[in-house]
């Protein structure tokens, strides 16, 4: 083996060691790359003058129009998170679907899907739904496993459904374009959501006692008021998501422009909700207290989380740029690409191996780290194997489903931790863990379906991008 390749492998080992003992991931990237630029210089396989291209690469990241979409979508999610949208939706849809067996679970999944698409934040979605609907489901006599599984699984869809931060960054690192990835991921995301709902309905009807119907006494809301409430809670948010996505898909606006309009929409929605709530109270709804949501504090907090996440992403990107550059120059990039390409089985073999790797990494790492660690390694191999653009999008969607699975895998999945922190005492941690398993199986089924029928992603891509 060449000396450079050995050094790049050692660099990777040093990086993994540093992040495992808990040193900051972003700093570890830069630290290990710097160490091996120094070692490489000592051993005459690296010329330090080559480091001078780094500022230009950083500048490229800084002026990247794709990354400009990040602050907009984060800000949009941060405003919606605080707009009271979740409770309104859960209330209305829960009352609507309650009379069905398993109806509340289906309502949770439906609302989770909407919230996930709108906010793009798993933590927020899971926590809010866990606080608002888990106690209700427990009181109604739902099986704890079904109740918790529905919440964690649908909340985790936030990674998968466009517009989401995960997809923006994956698109940027894969070089497939935000538009294409959003389009390709939409139907697979909805497929997952549909599978969850079917499962919730099926199990509550087949196994008595898992998802009882709401009794008459529970249904405090009926008729016209309920219809109004459903309308007021679902329509605005649906309109907002559709408007943002359609304007991207039709090429009317760039992702960052749609994001700007999305933020405006989120602000309007938060204002409008105050007036619709007032109207509902006037109509006789008793469980709502209209509250003005856009306080100074809310806006400040939204700005803070936008700044936090943008800085976090860019810090990681700056240092991983250096790492990826060293990996390329030392020859590790070529070597791993050749190795991955020669694994046997061509594209299929590569996809299988990489999926297993992503799943194993996903159990302990967040999507951000995975995106910045493994995607730069995968891309050269994919180019070597001759992946087309649609195949790259297909592969990225598979990765997203896979990360979803890792995210609810007991006992360490992040979504499970979020739910544990807010679950009422009668819900046992083991219930949360067991509850996730059927939904993991569903995700596995979806992964296999999507893996065997790339046509689904391709159709989603062609359908939403209008074939161009």
């Amino acid at each position: 083996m060449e000396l450079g390749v050995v050094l790049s492998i050692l660099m990777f080992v040093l990086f993994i060691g540093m992040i495992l003992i808990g040193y900051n991931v972003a700093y570890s990237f830069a630290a290990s790359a710097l160490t091996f630029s120094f070692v490489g210089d000592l051993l005459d396989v690296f010329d330090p003058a080559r480091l001078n291209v780094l500022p230009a690469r950083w500048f490229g990241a800084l002026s990247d129009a794709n990354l400009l979409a990040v602050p907009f979508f984060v800000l949009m999610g941060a405003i919606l998170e605080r707009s009271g949208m979740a409770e309104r939706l859960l209330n209305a849809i829960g009352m609507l679907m309650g009379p069905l067996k398993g109806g509340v679970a289906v309502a949770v999944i439906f609302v989770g899907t909407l919230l996930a698409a709108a906010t793009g934040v798993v933590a927020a979605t899971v926590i809010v739904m866990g606080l608002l609907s888990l106690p209700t489901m427990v009181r109604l006599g739902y099986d704890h496993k079904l109740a918790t599984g529905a919440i964690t699984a649908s909340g985790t869809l936030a990674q998968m459904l466009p517009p989401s931060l995960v997809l923006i960054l994956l698109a940027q690192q894969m070089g497939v374009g935000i538009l294409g990835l959003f389009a390709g991921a939409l139907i697979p995301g909805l497929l997952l959501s549909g599978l969850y709902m079917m499962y919730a309905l099926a199990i509550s009807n087949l196994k008595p006692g898992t998802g009882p119907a709401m009794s008459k006494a529970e249904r405090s809301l009926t008729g016209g008021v309920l219809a109004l409430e459903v309308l007021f809670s679902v329509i605005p948010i649906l309109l907002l998501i559709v408007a943002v996505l359609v304007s991207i898909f039709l090429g009317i606006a760039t992702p960052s422009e749609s994001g700007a309009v999305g933020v405006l929409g989120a602000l309007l929605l938060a204002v409008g909700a105050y007036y619709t709530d007032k109207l509902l109270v006037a109509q006789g709804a008793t469980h709502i207290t209209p509250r003005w949501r856009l306080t100074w504090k809310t806006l400040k907090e939204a700005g803070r989380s936008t700044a936090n996440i943008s800085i976090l992403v860019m810090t990681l990107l700056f240092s991983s740029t250096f790492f990826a550059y060293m990996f390329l120059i030392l020859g590790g990039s070529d070597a791993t690409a050749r190795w991955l390409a020669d694994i046997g089985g061509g594209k299929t073999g590569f996809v299988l191996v990489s999926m297993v790797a992503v799943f194993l990494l996903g159990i302990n790492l967040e999507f951000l780290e995975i995106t910045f660690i493994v995607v730069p390694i995968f891309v050269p191999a994919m180019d070597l194997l001759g992946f087309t653009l649609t195949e790259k999008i297909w592969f990225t969607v598979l990765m997203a489903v896979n990360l979803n699975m890792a995210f609810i895998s007991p006992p360490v999945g992040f979504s499970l931790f979020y739910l544990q922190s807010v679950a009422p005492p009668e819900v046992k941690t083991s219930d949360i863990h067991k509850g996730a398993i059927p939904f993991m199986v569903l995700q596995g089924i979806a992964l296999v379906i999507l893996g065997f029928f790339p046509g689904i992603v391709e159709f989603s891509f062609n359908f939403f991008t209008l074939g161009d």
Partner: protein
Amino acid sequence: MTDRRSDDATEKAEELLERFTTARHKEPAAVEWPTGIIGVLHVIRLGIERVTTLTGSIAMALAWIVFFLGLFNVTTRYIARFIQRDIIIGQVFDLQWMTFGALFLLGFNYAVREDVNPRIDFWWTHFSDKTKAWIDVIGHVVFFLPFLWMSLTILWPYSAQALGRKFDGTWLTWRVWEVWERSADAGGLPRGPIKLLMLIGFILFASQIIAQTIKSFMVLIDRPELGDLAEHEAPTRVE
């Protein structure tokens, strides 16, 4: 489907969400003022963090400014299409990504102090305070500060022209904008200032890492009241 208690639940949800987003950093409590070299280090740390607080609030404000610029941009583009006249202001597009650049360049130090950047807390949570402090001190001093130093040395020639250095190495006295190259797009903004900001951003980054090292060092010498460790009770999660 939510109960009458939904208001309580909402409040609790907001409280929890806040834990994910609000500032983690607290001003150090009034302690007996340390003397000697420890006192000097403490003062340096406090001075650095004052700057960090300032640039952090600038970064937060810039998040909203990026939004307003984006909105202005898309509105003018649509009005232009509607009235069939070219009123697109090219500079605003440049200004938009430059503002985003300024947001994170000026915020690097703030994110460091708030411990926003992710760690794998697999083993970290089980470590003692001293072990955590050792990891950070060694990591910062041996690895990360040298990286930042290297970055500054390569960024200096890249950004120096923004300060008026000509290609032949001589300096303009005060009309520095004469050497700012123009943006690639016609009608764009000069790129000198943002390149200079890259240099400033890395200086700020390094300064807060130094402050961070001082804080971990305080834990190592048994003065934890002067230090501050990453606790990760409520980690900042992105997803």
